[in-house]
């Protein structure tokens, strides 16, 4: 049995004149014990999809199941067994860390002691502040507490909506380590993130843009499907270089990517020679040209263009 299935999910919101489609014919399936990433920019429809799967929203059309239960008819069964951490901090700010955890343990008919092993490693980090009100915790601490509260009843499927947004790099790394430990316990995890670099940490990812899934595959599968040579170019005048590259008819796309530009050509011509030619026309110093492997972001950009 699949942990999560979605078939042709459509969700629209009424706008001024026409409806805005937050999700347009979305279908995918998540296996048991998988870490499934939903990667896409803000406003792509990630939260709508999460809310439909967590039974908080009704889709216009389409069918979805979580743990074998239908999200519409069996919503209470789903609510009893999943863990959900919304994108916005949604715990009681005027309750202390411990009170929040106790509250969520009790409403799920369990106790902190019963599933302490599951949250031990996360909770130990926030335990020094257990009497502090949740509203006074730092951003990373809040996320850790929210994860503890979502986990305390040992859910079979865990939904994390942008758990690492606004969290520092070190905490993000720790957060992912926790997710691997949870995966090892057999918990299926569906995680949404706007950060492309986190995609590589998932077992499989779905790239979502404007309510449509661009691709669903393993991170390697997605980068492997990138069938054109990719070049990284840098020089002293990056802005001028970008303009020159974009002007050239042979160039299909050129994106600034940190310190370098990523360039893809339209045809299958000799990229190296072509790049030398473009750079040679301008007056550039310290030119570096490298053939590189595409990452998820390159694939996302390419898929968006199609």
């Amino acid at each position, binding site marked *: 049995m699949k942990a999560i299935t979605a078939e042709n999910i459509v969700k629209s919101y009424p706008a001024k004149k026409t409806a805005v489609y937050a999700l347009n014919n979305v279908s995918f399936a998540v296996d048991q014990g998988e870490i499934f990433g939903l990667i896409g920019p803000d406003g792509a429809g990630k939260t709508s999809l999460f*809310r439909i799967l*967590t*039974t*908080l*929203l*009704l889709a216009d059309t389409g069918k979805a199941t979580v743990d074998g239960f239908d999200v519409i008819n069996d*919503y*209470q069964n789903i*609510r*009893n067994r*999943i863990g*959900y951490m*919304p994108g*916005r*901090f*949604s*715990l*009681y*700010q*005027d*309750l202390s860390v411990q*009170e929040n955890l*106790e*509250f*969520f343990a*009790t*409403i*799920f*008919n369990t106790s902190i002691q019963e599933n302490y092993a599951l949250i031990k490693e996360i909770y130990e980090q926030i335990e020094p502040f257990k009497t502090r009100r949740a509203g006074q915790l730092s951003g990373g601490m809040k996320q850790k507490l929210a994860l503890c*509260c*979502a986990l305390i009843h040992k859910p079979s499927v865990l939904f994390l909506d942008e758990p690492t947004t606004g969290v520092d790099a070190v905490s993000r790394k720790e957060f992912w380590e926790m997710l691997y430990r949870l995966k090892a316990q057999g918990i299926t995890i569906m995680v949404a993130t706007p950060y492309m670099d986190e995609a590589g940490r998932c077992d499989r990812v779905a790239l979502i843009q404007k309510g449509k899934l661009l691709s669903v595959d393993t991170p390697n599968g997605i980068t492997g499907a990138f069938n054109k040579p990719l070049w990284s170019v840098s020089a002293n005048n990056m802005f001028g270089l970008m303009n020159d590259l974009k002007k050239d008819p042979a160039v299909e796309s050129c994106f600034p990517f940190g310190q370098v530009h990523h360039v893809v050509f339209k045809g299958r011509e000799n990229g190296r020679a072509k790049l030398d030619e473009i750079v040679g026309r301008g007056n550039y110093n310290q030119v570096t040209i490298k053939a590189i492997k595409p990452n998820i972001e390159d694939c996302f950009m390419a898929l968006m263009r199609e």
Partner: protein
Amino acid sequence: MKQFVIFVKKEWLHIWRDRRTLFILLFMPIIQIVLYGFALTNEVKNSRIAVFDQSRDEATRAITGEIGASRYFNLVKNVYSYQGVEATFRKGEIRLAVVFPRGFRYDLLHGNHAQVQLIADASDPNTANTLTNYASSIINNYQQTLQPAATLPYTIKTQVRMLYNPELKGAYNFVPGVMALVLMLVCAMMTSIAIVKEKEMGTMEVILVSPLKPFRIIIAKTIPYLLVSMVNIASILLLSVYALDVPITGNLGLLIAESIVFTITSLSVGILISNTAKTQQTAMFTSMMSLFLPTLLFSGFMFPIENMPAPLRVISNLVPAKWYFIIVKDVMIKGLGFTAVWRETLILVSMTAVLLGVSIYKFKIRLI
């Protein structure tokens, strides 16, 4: 059950830790009772009057003295001409003027017939009526003292007895009304923000994705506020007795029990508002605006319901405060027992059941 207890505890912590709001919730009824108790009254007391005495004899002085000594009137001015009377009225200094003609006592004793003129400011007709009635009755009293032994062959004497409120104190009518008004507003306001707050803070999203049932959420939310309301009932009753001088004639236990029933009805009204409102502000305003006027108009303590047109009389039945007002008057003022108020109690209980039922039914199990 453990789920339920922890939810109540959580709600209690929200209230307890928000000290400022708790302070407001506990002190607002006290301030309102004092404010409405003293300000909301249609009693005529200490009305300012003037006397234009053209006779200045023993009889006019005696009548003037009687009028001035009554608690309804406060003699502020003697005027010496009709122009003076009019000028004083125009300045708004007085509500009533008493005019004695020349030779009042002489006419009275020798002509058996004397006249006195009462001039009232009838821009407020009710007050003008009341004032002239009071003044006339004082003058009639004086007339009777003149001939105590006179026995007329056929006389009808009206014997008036004012039951439950022999001193005709307005507070006896107003205090139950104010109690109903204050309890209604405070209780409904408290719970009206309870559910919508969770929606606003985003916590609703997490508690929806849990085994909690709407029924339990709603009941658990009312219980801590019921505790706060009990404190309010106590302070309102204490103020009524000690500040507004309205004694509790009936059974105190029954009065408290009925107050708790009404409180639960009011809390349920708040819950229903909270269920449908989108923001805390809307909820607050709805509970203030939509409850204040109907409670004031239709509970019967300001405007007699019997005098209203039929459609309004029907509407008044839907106002919980009306029934509580009747109960409090019966129990507190008249000293009646449960047998006298069971119908009203039953109405309040059914209203609560319907309100809670609708709240649970309308409780949104999903977002939007």
